[in-house]
């Protein structure tokens, strides 16, 4: 749906529009927040609260950028706010340890599940069956190379080769998504 239509729908508190953007952005926003707060439950609360805030302030919203960048940066600020207000010191310390490289200046990419899935699925489907199977076990089922080798009764080396092949193929077809920051030659 066109962004302008969506923004107008939000301003008018059109429930259909709200449900559409909720389903479209929810998981992407959650994963994005994980960069700032490594806690799935907290992150879901923050995103849920953000949508409720959007609903209650609908009429007075001013979205000057794209809807997408508005959503992601608004939710980013909610995360930073949350961190600022953490009262329990222990919790805060563990966040600091896990996120010691995250500062206000860090930029994380904005991804939406349906878009990502479409691209990745399309490219994964192009892979040879075995290669795809191994790659999925590794990347989507979280299995280690050794576990995969044992499960499929093949050598660990084969697993490594197959994953490497998959990555090479995907690298080519996902090239539009590989927005890379400047590389510093070490």
């Amino acid at each position, binding site marked *: 749906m066109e962004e302008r239509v969506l923004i107008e729908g939000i301003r008018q508190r059109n429930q259909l529009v709200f449900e559409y953007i909720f*389903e479209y952005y*929810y*998981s992407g926003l959650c994963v994005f927040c994980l960069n700032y707060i490594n806690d799935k439950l907290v992150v*879901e609360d923050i995103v*849920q609260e953000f949508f409720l805030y959007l*609903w*209650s302030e609908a009429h007075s919203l001013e979205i000057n950028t794209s809807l997408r960048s508005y959503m992601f940066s608004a939710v980013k600020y909610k995360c930073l706010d949350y961190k600022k207000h953490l009262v329990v010191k222990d919790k805060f310390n563990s966040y600091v340890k896990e996120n010691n490289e995250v500062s206000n200046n860090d930029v994380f990419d904005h*991804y939406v599940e349906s878009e*990502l899935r479409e691209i990745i699925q399309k490219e994964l489907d192009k892979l040879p069956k075995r290669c795809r199977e191994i790659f999925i076990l590794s990347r989507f089922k979280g299995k280690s190379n050794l576990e995969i080798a044992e499960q499929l009764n093949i050598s660990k080396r084969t697993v490594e080769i197959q994953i490497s092949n998959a990555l090479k193929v995907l690298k080519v077809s996902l090239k539009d998504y590989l927005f890379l920051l400047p590389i510093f030659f070490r």
Partner: protein
Amino acid sequence: MKQNRENNIQELFAGYFRNELSAEDKDKVNRWRQLSAENEVEFMRIKKVWDLTGILNQMEDFNVSNALHKFRKNIKSTPNSSWVNLQKIAAILIVPILIYTGFISYSHFLRTYNNQAQVVWQEFRAIPGSLSNITLPDSSTVCLNMGSTIKFPSTFNTDTRDVFLVGEAYFNVTQDKDHPFLVKTGKVNIEVLGTKFNVSNYEDSNEFEVVLESGKVGLFSGSYKNKKDLGKLLPGERVVYQKSNNSLMVDKVNVDDFTCWKDGILVFKDTPMKETVNKLSRWFNTKIELEDPELEDYFFTATFIEENLMQVLELLKHSTPIDYKIEQHREFKNGSYTKEIIKVYKKK
């Protein structure tokens, strides 16, 4: 051969990303990366693919439909989340009906406002059977429904513009940010911020209702200086305060249904018969009584524009399980008399 070695190195990437490599292999990869800018770019590209698939995997872990279900529930109970749970402030509302309703203590108002220069309090009552259009000292307009009363000063020269209402009125308030417009109706009062809204505060009703057409209103209890905010209404919303169980309910409505009375249109939408009969009584200035209590919860829907009472009663008789009987007015020896009464009962 270089190609072979590169292939071998790339096979180590997955292990590298997962931190499963031996120190020796990890070094191999790092050294390969440092050999050239192309190597490093190649590494980063593969890492990016790795990350993207990982991100998709993470996304799948979030249950969107559960979250959406939660969202739907949340917006239903609080259309705007500024509403206060009344239970928490029940203590404040135990205060008995304030003197603002009814016609008691006229002198109280004079006492309170007497230090101001020559302010005269005026009271307007819309004659039963008619509407009254009134302009307030600040150019705000009020349409008073039948049998309703509004009280306000000849000039608004205090910090707040106060009016008192018993009954029902449609307000169109001029904006004046420095002087909040307050509608005092009893336990729950209204603070207005330049808007159009309808207030229903009938004495014989268990409910107090405000419907907002445009602008913004806030509800509060207690005095304005020490007000306890109960929440804010947005256009298209209605708040209903139930006196009997001290509760607030907010929902979205078609505003026209609640303000059309000022254009002479009578609307019933799933209205319980008891309320229908009350509304008709006021509208036609006739006492109408429900004889059979079973009829009370029957829900009635209709729109009347210019029908007279007889036409409405006939329609009710044909479309609902009711019948009616007119009792003529009787005059007593001492000169008093009863008005004509219409008795509505269940069809046999």
